[in-house]
């Protein structure tokens, strides 16, 4: 009897241990995910051009739902019998853990800014042979921002869309109210000129700022880099080991100008922040001008009952520091990579190719939230309204007449450090706790410390 009880105890402990281990483990699904019903075929989502895959294959794609919708997955799976796709949400730490642990991951959504880090760690596949053979994705059909995905001779991915990120938008009504005579489209406007206009267009009521003159997009490091590009300079040393901020007169002058604009409440700032973001700020009349990209077109296109009509805004080339030339490349690039550890490289490429050059790419171009990464899709960009046509003309002019070379991405630190450190020091400056020189010196010190930390980790 006692012996029998002991066995029961042992059996229960073993069973519990097995159950708990199963609960805690990261068990991979043993069955393929249930295939959803095929959606009604539309021109935008039809995946008929994707070739059928004979062998059953499951692809694991790390991408946000906003860029890889269930509709896209359903359309592809319906047109490719045997293929199943599992989408998982993007997460940098999870990505690293999955790759190191050898878990299945085939396609990875990421920024072009990540290319060097991913390639150096051997996480992503060099797609050069695939691009060379592709009928859909041809090098001469691609925009310059695809360069963000090239590194040390390899070609690791592609952005899904892009925009020159710092074009300048200004309200004709606000300008007229302030007595500003706007120059013809495609005129290069300087930062000093725009700052002067911003001050004139700022409106206050009872101590409250009801309209800032300019909604600055907070691409602090990117703007500094593009301003320096005008003279062939860069924020970082050749080997990326140092950022030159406090000793570069142009950078100091730019940051000082912006701090003074913030002090005058002519731009949103840490003490008077934007309640939303640039599109609603412009459409609700909270900002009279903005530096931003063609992305604005998508927001304007979808606007319902705007206070200020999209047609009221003129798009100009990016602001120039020197006044002779301006640089307005895409500051990054949201795109896709293929994992170097994938066992389904060909199937992953087929899906990659479909997403970047097939129906989803056509659909994105027709919506007009950003510009297509393939020039051949430019004809699809929305151009029914006059203001939409003006935006396209401006983009084409900027592509032909401004510096479009991608900026250099420092692989040793996150540019979030530059932006958050500057915001923190700008706040202290605006509260009168430090001088602008101290704010810039603090930024220089913090950014260089972050770079030094990154280099130490990389060694």
């Amino acid at each position, binding site marked *: 009897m006692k012996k029998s009880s002991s066995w029961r105890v042992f059996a229960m402990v073993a069973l519990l241990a097995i159950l708990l281990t199963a609960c805690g483990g990261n068990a991979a699904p043993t069955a393929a995910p249930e295939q959803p019903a095929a959606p009604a075929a539309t021109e935008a989502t039809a995946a008929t051009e994707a070739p059928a895959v004979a062998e059953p294959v499951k692809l694991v794609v790390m991408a946000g739902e906003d860029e890889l919708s269930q509709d896209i997955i359903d359309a592809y799976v319906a047109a490719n019998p045997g293929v199943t796709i599992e989408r998982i949400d993007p997460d940098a730490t999870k990505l*690293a853990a999955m790759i190191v642990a050898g878990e299945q991951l085939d396609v990875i959504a990421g920024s072009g800014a990540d290319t060097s880090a991913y390639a150096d760690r051997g996480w992503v596949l060099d797609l050069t042979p695939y691009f060379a053979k592709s009928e859909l994705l041809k090098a001469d059909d691609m925009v310059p921002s695809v360069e963000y995905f090239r590194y040390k001779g390899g070609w690791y991915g592609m952005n899904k869309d892009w925009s020159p990120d710092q074009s300048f938008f200004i309200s004709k009504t606000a300008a007229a109210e302030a007595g500003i005579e706007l120059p013809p489209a495609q005129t290069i406007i300087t930062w000093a000129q725009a700052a002067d206009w911003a001050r004139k267009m700022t409106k206050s009521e009872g101590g409250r700022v009801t309209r800032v003159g300019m909604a600055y997009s907070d691409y602090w490091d990117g703007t500094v880099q593009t301003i320096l590009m005008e003279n062939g300079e860069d924020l970082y040393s050749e080997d990326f080991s140092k950022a030159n901020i406090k000793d570069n007169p142009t950078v100091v002058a730019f940051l000082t100008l912006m701090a003074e604009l913030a002090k005058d409440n002519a731009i949103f700032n840490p003490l*008077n922040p934007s309640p939303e973001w640039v599109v609603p700020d412009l459409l609700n009349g909270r900002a009279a001008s903005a530096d931003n990209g063609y992305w604005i077109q998508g927001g304007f296109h979808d606007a319902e009952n705007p206070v200020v009509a999209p047609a009221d805004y003129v798009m100009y080339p990016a602001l120039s520091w020197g006044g002779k030339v301006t640089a307005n490349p895409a500051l990054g690039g949201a795109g896709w990579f293929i994992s170097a550890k994938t066992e389904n490289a060909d199937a992953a490429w087929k899906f990659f190719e479909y997403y970047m050059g097939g129906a989803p790419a056509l659909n994105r171009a027709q919506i007009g939230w950003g510009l297509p990464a393939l020039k051949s899709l430019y004809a699809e960009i929305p151009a029914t309204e006059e203001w939409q046509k003006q935006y396209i003309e401006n983009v084409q002019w900027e592509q032909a007449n401004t510096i479009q070379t991608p900026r250099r991405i420092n692989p040793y630190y996150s540019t979030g450090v530059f932006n958050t450190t500057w915001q923190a020091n700008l706040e202290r400056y605006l509260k009168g706790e430090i001088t602008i020189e101290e704010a810039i010196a603090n930024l220089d010190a913090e950014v260089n410390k972050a770079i030094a930390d990154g280099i130490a980790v990389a060694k």
Partner: protein
Amino acid sequence: MSADTQTTLRTKRKFLGLSGFGWMRASWFYVFIAPWFLGFLAFTVIPVAVGMLMSFTNFTGTNFDTYKFIGLANYSEAFGEFFTDGIAWYALSRTGLFAIVTIPINIVLSLLIAILLTRNIRGKGFFRTLFYIPSIIPVVASVWIWKALMDNNYGVVNAVLNEIVPNTYIRWLTEYPFHVLVMWSVWAGVGGAVIIFMAGIQGVPAELEEAARIDGANNFQMFRNITAPLLTPVIFYQFIVGIIGSLQILTQPLLLAPRAVQAGIATLPPRENYMFMIHIYQESFVRQRYGYGSSLLWILFFFILILTIVMTYTSKYWVYYEVNPEDK
């Protein structure tokens, strides 16, 4: 059966002081605690141990295959920040100020409300519920309510002030964020403390109060000499819980930041609300210095531990215990 055999069996049955029946009972005990114990191991002990190990590395959250042990370098850097008036020291000092301001306000206010709510007043059930409601609202929702109240441009408070004094415009969330955080903390924290104080007040023996009243004591004398001493264990508990909660504050200042939604992971609250946990969050997730962030967490842990030990030690001088806590 010989006497020797019987002795051998008895010895076997008494292995490690437990008979066969004792072993069976012990086994059942372990079976019943196994689900909790395995969970505790998997989700508490192991993560804490990994966190400790991480604090000795240069782990960035992504360098699983290349991270290195760097000894006490993270701790050395953190203490360097403390001794050179760096940002870590600033964050700790702001957190300390938050604790110093909110804990006394919370305790005094909740004690006063608890005294009122234990009196025979009309509608006390309603008021008890009313004061407790903020405690059951999820933190995120309650912070959003306060954000809607205090918003610089569209806040209810500024709108009301404008009705009273036209053209009044106060940037609550950007120029007075610390005040807003303290107000939120008191609003959200008082309800729970009131309940505990009410339990304490209702536990004061009625015969003591009756005796004092017969001896001619007035309300203040009764509170000072009877109620307050008997409530010191509750006050002591509120102090300990308040210190731990205040020093770990993170979510509230992050959510109160004006651009919390737009900035996402890079959210930076106004400098007045740059608490120690915010600094750890920034170092870990914005700067991707998980190793350094872990070392800061351990420093915070030991700081809280030392404070708690000091408070517990000093409690014998001011906390009334019906039994001597040192008696075993």
